[in-house]
């Protein structure tokens, strides 16, 4: 019977081998407790790390510097510029002196050629840059000398300094005039920022290390690891398990971390959600319906019920955070009774089915929302029930953007956007009639001569007081003839471990996250807690 023992012995060895492998996997994942490394969870993975393809174009990108940057109060401060940009009296020519002795992460020196090459690549259609539409005012950029550049504008544009935060790339990397879809810069960026790119495992992680030669001083946190996890609950779990030091979460989920070892912060934002009211549609184009819808929606109710109380009611696209520009007289209150009176007066008669109609046209329209966006879906459902209360029937459709786009001129849509930097950049294309039907800019063809005039006056104003007056005037004109139903400015929420000093609250734009505006916007200034 020796053969039996032999066989068993072999089996024993085999299972012993398996047994040796399994415990090896039960060792917990090593988490670096050092304060020199931060591990952050990010919900949105960029397609490309190229400023010309929209990466960090609003600044605070860690990898890149613009000529200017914005501080915590959103004031402009020089970055790659040596001083504040100098502007001619007509505000059409801006001259920028450049900081000297700065080098890119690859060691090459920074000078005027790099600035010229970067901005020219934005303007030159051959590069197929996705941010070209943000620079309609820019006609050219010229090198004056090795450390001076001049920007020429088509018309006076007071907010142009805010466009000088575009990340600068080395001219040597932009010599081939071809679409950027294949550019090596997309996955191996070269900037001058406080952090250098190390590695990007797409769909998983990205690693950055401190730029020890950074002109504003080497950061104390020497390494940033970004973990990509699209699902909010996954990031919350990783945060609880100790795998992450900081992450972005929806307000309600973030609040579950309150108390204890975590810091939970909520940022005010310029990030609005609005319902478009297409002019061409017999219901949404009707002034009475538009007024009534604006009075019928319970904005604070939506914030309390859907956003865990985190958000600010919106009546116009001018965010509360740009408070000097906000016109108090242009805010809608929640008044369904008044909405009903307006509809009655305009001849929209309540029918037996609790839906109003006028001359055989029922007060019914379709509201589209991107199917994967739960916040927009929740808001859309709230709009449906508020509209129903005043006798307007809203039919919901959750779709992909490809399906939404061709229908935007006829059907309503939950749209989002917003910039905290100035009241022009996002607002002008959203409301000005010249952008009617132009991509996603003014999808409902909103047109009001007074609003147009106010927007133009604000854009060209050279005096701040004059600009504020113009912005307030168009808000009043808009409130008298609204073409959207603005709902809320969202708050963005973040959860962090309390291992560092230096967190500074800031106002977020629409796009937020780890490598742009958000809780970690000034990570290079953070220092370990002693």
């Amino acid at each position: 019977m020796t053969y039996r023992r032999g066989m068993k012995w072999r089996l024993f060895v085999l299972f012993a081998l398996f047994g040796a492998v399994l415990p090896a996997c039960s060792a917990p994942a090593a988490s670096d407790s050092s304060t020199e490394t931060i591990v952050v969870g990010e919900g949105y993975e960029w397609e490309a790390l190229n400023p010309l393809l929209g990466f960090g174009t609003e600044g605070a990108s860690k990898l890149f510097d613009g000529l200017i940057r914005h501080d915590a109060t959103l004031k402009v401060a020089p970055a790659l510029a040596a001083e504040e940009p100098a502007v001619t009296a007509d505000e059409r020519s801006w001259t920028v002196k450049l900081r000297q002795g700065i080098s890119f992460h690859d060691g090459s020196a920074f000078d005027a050629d790099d600035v010229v090459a970067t901005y020219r690549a934005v303007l030159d259609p051959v590069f197929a840059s996705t941010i070209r539409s943000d620079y309609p005012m820019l006609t050219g950029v010229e090198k004056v000398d090795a450390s001076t550049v001049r920007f020429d504008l088509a018309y006076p544009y007071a907010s142009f300094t805010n466009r000088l935060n575009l990340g600068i790339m080395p001219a040597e990397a932009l010599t081939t005039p071809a679409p950027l879809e294949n550019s090596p810069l997309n996955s191996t960026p070269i900037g001058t920022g406080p952090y250098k790119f190390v590695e990007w495992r797409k769909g998983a992680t990205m690693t950055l290390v401190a730029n020890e030669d950074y002109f504003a001083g080497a950061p104390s946190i020497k390494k940033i690891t970004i973990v990509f996890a699209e699902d909010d609950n996954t990031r919350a779990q990783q945060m609880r398990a100790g795998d992450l030091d900081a992450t972005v979460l929806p307000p309600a989920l973030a609040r579950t971390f309150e108390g204890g070892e975590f810091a939970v912060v909520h940022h005010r934002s310029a990030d609005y959600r609005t319902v478009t009211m297409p002019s061409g549609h017999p219901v949404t184009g009707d002034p009475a319906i538009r007024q009534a819808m604006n009075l019928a929606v319970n904005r604070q109710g939506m914030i309390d019920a859907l956003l865990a109380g985190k958000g600010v009611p919106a009546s116009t696209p001018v965010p509360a955070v740009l408070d000097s520009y906000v016109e108090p007289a242009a805010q809608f209150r929640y008044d369904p009774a008044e909405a009903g009176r307006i509809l009655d007066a305009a001849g929209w008669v309540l029918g037996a089915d609790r839906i109003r109609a006028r001359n055989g046209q029922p007060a019914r329209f379709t509201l589209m929302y991107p199917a994967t966006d739960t916040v927009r879906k929740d808001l859309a459902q709230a709009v449906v029930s508020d509209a129903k209360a005043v006798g307007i029937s809203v039919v919901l459709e959750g779709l992909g953007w490809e399906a939404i786009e061709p229908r935007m001129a006829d059907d309503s849509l939950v749209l989002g956007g917003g910039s905290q930097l100035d009241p022009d950049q996002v607002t002008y294309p959203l409301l000005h009639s010249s952008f009617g039907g132009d991509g996603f800019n003014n999808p409902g063809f909103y047109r009001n001569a007074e609003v147009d005039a106010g927007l133009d006056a604000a854009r060209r104003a050279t005096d701040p007081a004059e600009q504020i007056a113009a912005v307030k005037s168009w808000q009043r004109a808009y409130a008298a003839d609204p073409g959207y139903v603005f709902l809320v400015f969202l708050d963005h929420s973040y959860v962090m471990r309390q291992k560092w000093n230096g967190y500074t609250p800031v106002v977020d734009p629409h796009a937020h996250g780890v490598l742009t505006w958000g809780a970690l916007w000034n990570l290079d200034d953070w220092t370990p807690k002693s």
Partner: protein
Amino acid sequence: MARRLGFVTPVLVVAVGIFLLGAASPFDPIYQYYGLDIFTATAEDIARVRAQLGLDDGVLVQLWRWLAGIFSGELGSSRAFRQPVADVITQRLPWTLLLVSVGLVIMIVIALVIGVLAAWRQGGLLDRSVTAMAHAMEGIPSFVLGLGAIALFALSLRWVAVAGLTSPGAPASFSEVTHYLIMPALVLGVSQTPWLILYLRASLLTALAEDHVAGARARGLPEWRVVLRHALPTALLPFVTLLGARVPELVTGAVLVEEIFSWPGVAEAVVTAALAVDFPMLAALGVLSTAAVLVGSLLADVAIVLADPRVATDG
């Protein structure tokens, strides 16, 4: 062998098929290219970029452009990854090969050990439970097995990590990768074993009843010798053919397993590319998986020829 070398036809059919499917899908690649900027771009700029990227060209023009590139050794560029297709594949293929080959080894080892034991002790407790479990598991897709394994081993028992290649920020060292590889490889291997176990058991039972096995027993050879040296080689021949036939399952299994475990291989890229209607990437991946299937069955054929002198090579 010449039959197998007619690779080119199915590969071309697959490539053309993927292009036509992509053309019929509702996804518009311009959204992928623009990202968030689509909402602030002007229609004029979008139209210009479309023209620049050749998105307005008909699918046949795009197909022709791609084929012309292939024949000049240029795989084109991936829109979803913003990188040349060749780079995406060279970065990801090694991880997939690692996962699939470890999965394959696990699959063969488990099938051989359990299949032999079950046939040897036919009708015993092990045999009955293995047969029942294998039949049940045939019906379980690999993604269900994967999610179940994550729920049990990663979330409840916390033995292994949930997903990824390494823990956040850690270098791709041997121990890190092993730690993260074990679950996806086991799921991939185990999900393919039921067929193999049942098949091996059946063919081993047949072999055990054959004359040369009876002869070996009659000569008084020890039982393990009879089973492993005389019956198993006969039973292994159809087993090797079956292995070749399982390669397509292994390829589709890899797509699901890589997606579930966020394994950064080529199979995961299939999903990303499909959602972005990334023609060049999809076509390259389609060709790659077709080639994997064909090479798999070719290797199985070669293995049979080497293992069994009765098979003529000119067939």
